[in-house]
């Protein structure tokens, strides 16, 4: 058996090389370093939101929670924030495009850890959680409301709670029943007929409503997963034990994720997102209007009266770094969408900004194929991936699913995780 000897030598050498750079979990030192950086233990404390003075006020959060679940804030009484962000489904709805009083063009975004993100919506057209919360209430296919009617609901149902947090509600007498700058023609005309001072007073209460909801949403923190228990063992140089020990297939997927497949380029940090916008060549949805993502959102956030630099923000201009230093033009914005967190991703099909891809397996195939983008240029490069590699990546992604207690249940029970 002459060929046996060289093979044995090669195998022994390979083994020695592998062992030299390995920790007890079978990862190289570099892989272990990246794995530790993805653990929930590496999550920084919840960032302050200087644009929202009640961001961490428990009374504001309680009011925000009530508003989040209130169907009475929608035009026909059928929809609340929780209709799409369902706490029992980890604040998601499991459908391709959100359904409010109509059907939206985009998919419901996950809310776990949302307050760690500097930009909101898939295209980042809001620069704070409270500015984001205002959008759906007046979106004709989401809540379908208008800000004067919304304010009337506050006066009739939440006056005491509102005034305890924000001070006296302005007098609504003399205002029309319905008026807003984004509603029907009649609502827009009624809005235009108001004085500047009347509009400013309404906008003030409207922005307060968003700030209360933001105070509630800030409590929706990521929940520990099997992967975190594995990563913490790796970081401590321990051998992961029990359910924290990932299977060979899951480890293989993890190695692809942080290595050859380069998923970690964008899905990095403890929330597995870089909070940035990327064109990944996701196909357009036939029948929907043209969607250019970040390329259009930049002008919208700059024009938004509720942005960090606006009259209703509690921040000084110097505290508005995100909007002041955002990239305002360039090819990279075309059809770029926010990198979503991958925590809980396996339970949130379908995928992409308009639910274009049904399963995680097909998502992995999309990244391997790296198709041309409908407009702009995809940042993806084709990837050589075996069937096992594809299985492994999906197996790894499933380790990011919290077992047991739901994120929503923890928030609603008043247990406030604050990062570590």
């Amino acid at each position, binding site marked *: 058996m002459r060929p046996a000897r060289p093979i044995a030598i090669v195998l022994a050498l390979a083994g020695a090389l592998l062992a030299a750079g390995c920790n007890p979990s079978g990862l190289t030192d570099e892989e272990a370093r990246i794995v530790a950086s993805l653990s929930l233990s590496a999550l920084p404390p919840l960032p302050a939101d200087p644009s929202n003075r009640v961001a961490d006020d428990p009374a504001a959060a309680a009011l925000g929670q009530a508003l989040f679940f209130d169907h009475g804030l929608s035009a026909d009484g059928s929809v609340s924030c929780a209709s799409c962000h369902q706490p029992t489904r980890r604040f998601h709805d499991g459908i391709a495009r959100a359904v409010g009083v109509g059907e939206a063009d985009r998919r419901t975004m996950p809310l776990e850890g949302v307050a760690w993100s500097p930009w909101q919506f898939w295209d980042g057209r809001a620069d704070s959680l409270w500015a984001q919360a205002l959008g759906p209430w007046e979106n004709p296919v989401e809540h379908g409301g208008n800000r004067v009617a919304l304010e009337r609901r506050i006066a009739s149902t939440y006056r005491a709670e509102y005034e305890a947090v924000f001070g006296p509600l302005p007098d609504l007498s003399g205002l029309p029943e319905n008026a807003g700058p984004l509603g029907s023609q009649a609502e827009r005309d009624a809005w235009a007929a108001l004085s500047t001072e009347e509009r400013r007073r309404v906008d003030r209460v409207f922005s307060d409503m968003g700030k209360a909801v933001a105070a509630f949403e800030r409590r929706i923190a990521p929940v520990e997963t099997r992967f975190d228990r594995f990563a913490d063992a790796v970081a401590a140089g321990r051998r992961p034990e029990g359910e924290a020990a990932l299977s060979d297939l899951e480890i293989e997927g993890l190695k692809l994720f942080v290595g050859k497949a380069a998923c970690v380029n964008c899905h990095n*940090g403890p929330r597995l997102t*870089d909070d940035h916008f990327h064109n990944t060549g996701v196909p357009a949805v036939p029948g929907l209007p043209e969607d250019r993502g970040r390329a259009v959102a930049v002008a919208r956030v700059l024009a938004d009266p509720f942005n960090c630099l606006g009259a209703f923000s509690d921040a000084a201009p110097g505290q508005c770094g995100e909007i002041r230093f955002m990239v305002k033009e360039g090819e990279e914005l075309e059809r770029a969408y926010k990198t979503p967190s991958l925590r809980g991703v396996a339970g949130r099909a379908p995928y992409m900004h308009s639910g274009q891809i049904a399963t995680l397996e097909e998502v992995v195939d999309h990244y391997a194929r790296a198709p041309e983008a409908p407009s702009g240029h995809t940042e993806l490069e084709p990837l*050589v991936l075996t069937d096992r590699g594809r299985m492994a990546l999906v197996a790894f992604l499933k380790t990011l699913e919290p077992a047991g207690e739901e994120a929503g249940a923890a928030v609603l029970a008043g247990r406030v995780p604050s990062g570590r």
Partner: protein
Amino acid sequence: MRAWLRRGIEKAAFRAAGRTGATMKKLIYVLVAVVALAVAFVGWRMTMSPPDDLDLARSKPTEAGTFVVAVAPESEPLRQGPLHNWIVTVTTPAGAPVDDATIGVDGGMPQHGHGLPTAPAVTAALGEGRYRIEGVRFNMGGWWELKLAVTAGGASDAVTFNLVL
């Protein structure tokens, strides 16, 4: 590319497996080596470690030697993710501070072919040739370039700093 490569290897391995003899075994080893190299190449391209000989100096002369520029994050440690500031110090080659400079900021990841995720800008001249750049973010790990275009006293020059996160 991957489909024909895989099919080719499978075909060759299948043929080789159907025969016996040292030649075929050698062929298998060669094929295994080729596959290993191909996988290693693709892996290298996708993960792309920075070059080993990358100049990581935080202080250096500009390209034409007009100025000497030093950069430092305003607060350490430098972290991937958060928006943060840098302090740039501009001097003449003789070491005299340059206080009237206009500084343009650019950069990106040469191995990924993209620019900076933000549009940082100089927001304050701090005196003694020092300037504050606000709005810097590095949203990925790896090799970043920070490119500064310095104009002062009628002269313009540029300098590129390499950072590895």
